C-alpha cells in the first residue's frame, strides 16, 4: 500500500472517530428552544431540558435570601410562565429585561425549574426618569 493511501486511511479513521465523538455529544446534550405555550404543553414524560426566552414580568420577582430561592414570571406572545430558580440572585435582574431559562418543566406544579439563567445583556438600556 502506498504511503499516500496509508495516510489517507489513517486520516479518514481519525476524522471518523472525531465525528462520532461530536455526534454523541450533540445527541445527548441539546435542549430545544421552545415558546412558553410549547413548554406548558410538555407532558410529564418529557424529561429533556428545554430553554425558553421571555420578557420578565414587572413586579413578579420574588427573592428569598434564607433559601436562596428566586421566583419570577416571564412572558412572550404565547403566554406567561412561572420560573423557580435556586442559587445566587443573578446580576442585572431587571424588570422588562429578557431572560433565557434552561431547565425542566414541572406540569404538576405548573412551574419551570430553571438550572441556568441567562440574562440578555443590555448594552443599550433606558435612562431612568
Amino acid at each position, binding site marked *: 500500500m502506498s504511503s499516500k493511501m496509508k495516510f489517507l486511511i489513517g486520516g479518514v479513521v481519525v476524522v471518523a472517530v472525531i465525528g462520532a465523538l461530536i455526534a454523541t455529544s450533540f445527541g445527548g446534550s441539546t435542549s430545544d428552544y421552545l415558546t412558553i405555550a410549547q413548554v406548558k404543553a410538555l407532558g410529564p414524560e418529557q424529561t429533556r431540558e428545554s430553554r425558553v426566552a421571555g420578557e420578565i414580568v414587572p413586579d413578579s420577582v420574588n427573592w428569598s*435570601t434564607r433559601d436562596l430561592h428566586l421566583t419570577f414570571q416571564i412572558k412572550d406572545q404565547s403566554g406567561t410562565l412561572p420560573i423557580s430558580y435556586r442559587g445566587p440572585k443573578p446580576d442585572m435582574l431587571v424588570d422588562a429585561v429578557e431572560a433565557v431559562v434552561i431547565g425542566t418543566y414541572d406540569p404538576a406544579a405548573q412551574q419551570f425549574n430553571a438550572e441556568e439563567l441567562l440574562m440578555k445583556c443590555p448594552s443599550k438600556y433606558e435612562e431612568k426618569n
Partner: protein
Amino acid sequence: MALSDIGYGALLLTLAAAVWATVASALGAWHRRPELVTSARNALLVTAALSTLSAVVLFMLLTSRDFSVRYVYEHVSTYLKPAYVLSAFWAGMEGSQLLWLWMLALFTGVLVLAKPTWDRELRPYAMVVLAFTQTFFAVLLIWISNPFELMATVPAEGVSLNPLLQNFWMIVHPPIVFASYALWTIPAAYALAALVTGKVDATWLRGTRRWTLAAWITLGIGILVGGWWAYLELGWGGYWGWDPVENSSFIPWLVGTAFVHSAILQERRDMFRAWTLLLGVVTFVLTIFATFVTRSGLIQSVHAFAKSPIGYYYLGFMLLVLAGTAGLVLARNRELEGSGELGDLFSREFVFVVSNLLLLGSAAAVLLGTLWPTLTGSDGQGLGTGLSKEGYNRFMGPLSFLLVLLVGLCPLVEWRKTTLARFARSVWVQVVVAMLIAIPLLVYGPWQPWAVVAFSVAAFVVATILLQMGMGVAARMRSAGENLFVATSRAVGNNRRRYGAQLIHLATLLIVIGIIGSQAFQEERQVALAKGESVEVGRYRLVYTDLTYQSVEEGGNKVRTEAVLDVYRGDRKLATVTPERNQYQNVQGSVTEVALRSNLMEDLYIVLASMDPDGLTAFAVYITPLVVWLWIGGLVMIIGTLIAAWPTGRGAAVPARLAVQPTGVKA
C-alpha cells in the same frame, strides 16, 4: 458638530483611497507597472493616516461628551469615569468597526512602509487583499453603521456605559481581540498573493511567520483576558460559558493553531501546500465571522449587540473570499504539488496531520454548536435547539486530551519514520514520571478518574517538554564546557524557534492543568448569614462581620453596598475581604464585585448575593483549585512567542533555498 463632520469626511476619503489602492495594486501587479503599485502603497499610507484621524475624532467626541452625536449619547454620560469613556469607543457596533478598520489600516501601513525584500512579487497582490478588506469596512462605516451619525435634538445627558462594562478589562480586551483579527488579515493576504502568482512554496510562510505569530498570540491572550474578565465580573465562579461570542473568537484560534503547525510541516517537508494556504485564508474568514456573530444578532447571546441587516454584508464578503480562494486553489492545482513524500504512518508528519485534524475537528464542532440554534430553528414558532455547556465539554474534553497527548508524543517521533524501539527508548522516563504522579492521585482520592488520567498525561507531556529543553542545554554543557546559564542562553539563542515553541507548549500545559483543576474540583456553597455568624467552606472559615451602605461616586449615581468578611484558616486570620453589590441609578438591578483571594493552589471567590432588610445576607462561595495557572500559562505563552519570533542576528544560519542571488539585477 464640525468635529463629527471631519470624522465622517475622513472616512469618505479613506474609502476613496482604499478603493484606489485595491485597483491600482491589482493593475500595477498584473501589467507590471511599478508606479501604480507605488501609488497604491501611498494610498494605503493615506488610509492609515485618515482612519487614525477618524478614530481620534471619535475619541475627542466621547471625551468632550458631545451628545449631539448619537454614538456618544448612547455610550457615555457626564458622570462616567474618564478611563471608561475611552472604552466606550468600542462598546458599540459602530465604534468597534471603526476600531477594526483603524487597526487594519495601521498594520497595513507598517507593512507597506518596509522595503520589499522576500515579497517583491507577492506584495502588490497582498496589498489588493488588504485594501479590499479596508474598503469593505469603510463601506459599512459610511452607509450602514456610522459612528458619527447625529441626533435630531441634542439631549442634556447621555445613557452612559453599561455598568458591566465599567472596568479595566473593557479597556483592554476588545482592542486586543480586534488587533488580532486585523493581524490575521496579513497571512491571508499573502496566501492569496501566493496563489495568484503561483509562488506557492514556503516563501510566503517564512516571510509572514512573525505576523502570524503576532496574530496568534494576540488572539490567544485576548481570549484569556476575556475569560479573566468573565471570571471577575460575571460572578458565577466560572470563566467560560461557551457563549456564542466567546466561541466565535475561539474558533479562529483553533484554526490558526492548525495553520501554524501546517506551516511548519510545509516548511520542513514541503507537503500539504494547498492545505496550509486554505487554513491561512480560513482563519481570516473566521475572524470576519466572529465580528459578524457579535454584530448581527444572528444567535441569541448574553453579549449580543442589537440585530441589524449588516449581517448580509459580512456573509457576502466571507463567501466572496472563500469562493475566490477555492477557485485559485483549483486553478493552481499543478503548482500545489509539493516535493515532500509521505513516509511511514509512525512519523512526525502523521502526528502533525492528526493534530491538525483534532484542532479543525474541535473548531468545526464548536462552530456547529454555536450555529445549532440557527440551523435547527424552523420558521413559525419553532426556535431551534441549543447545545448545552455539558455538550461542548463532552467533545472538547476528549479532543483536547488527545491534542495534549500529541504534544508530548511529537518530539519523540522522528520525521519520516520511527521504529518502536527508538520510540520506547525516548519515552520511558516520562512514562515513569506520569506513573509517579498518577499513583498518589489515585491513592488520596476521592478523585474523578478522568482527572487522574488527565493529570498523569499532563505530567507525561510536561516531562517530555522539559527533557527536550534540557537535553539540548546538557549537550552544550558537555561538549562546549559551558556552565548552565551560558549553555542555556546560547542554546536558546541559536534555536529560538525550537525553544520558543517548547515554551509555548509548556504554557499550554499550564493552562490545561488549570482547566482540569478548576473544572473537576470546584467547590460551591451558598449560605445565608446574619452579622457575626460564620461558615466553614473548604479549609476556610468565613466570619461575616459587617455590611455597609455607601452612596458614592458619579454624583450619587452609584450606591455601593459592601459586606465585610474575615477569612480564617484554623486560628490564623488570612485576610478581610469585601464583596460588593452596587446599585446604579439608571439601571434597575445591581452589579456584583467579587471578592477574590488567589494563590497557586486555589482561589477563594465570594459573591455578595443579596441583602435582606431583616438582616440575613446571602453569599455564594466558590473554591476553585489551580485556576491561577490559566493566567500564568498565558504569561509564559507570551514569553515563548517572543522567543520564537525574536529576530535572528546576522550569521545565524537560514536554510538556504535558492539563496543564490542572480547577479546583475538592480532593485
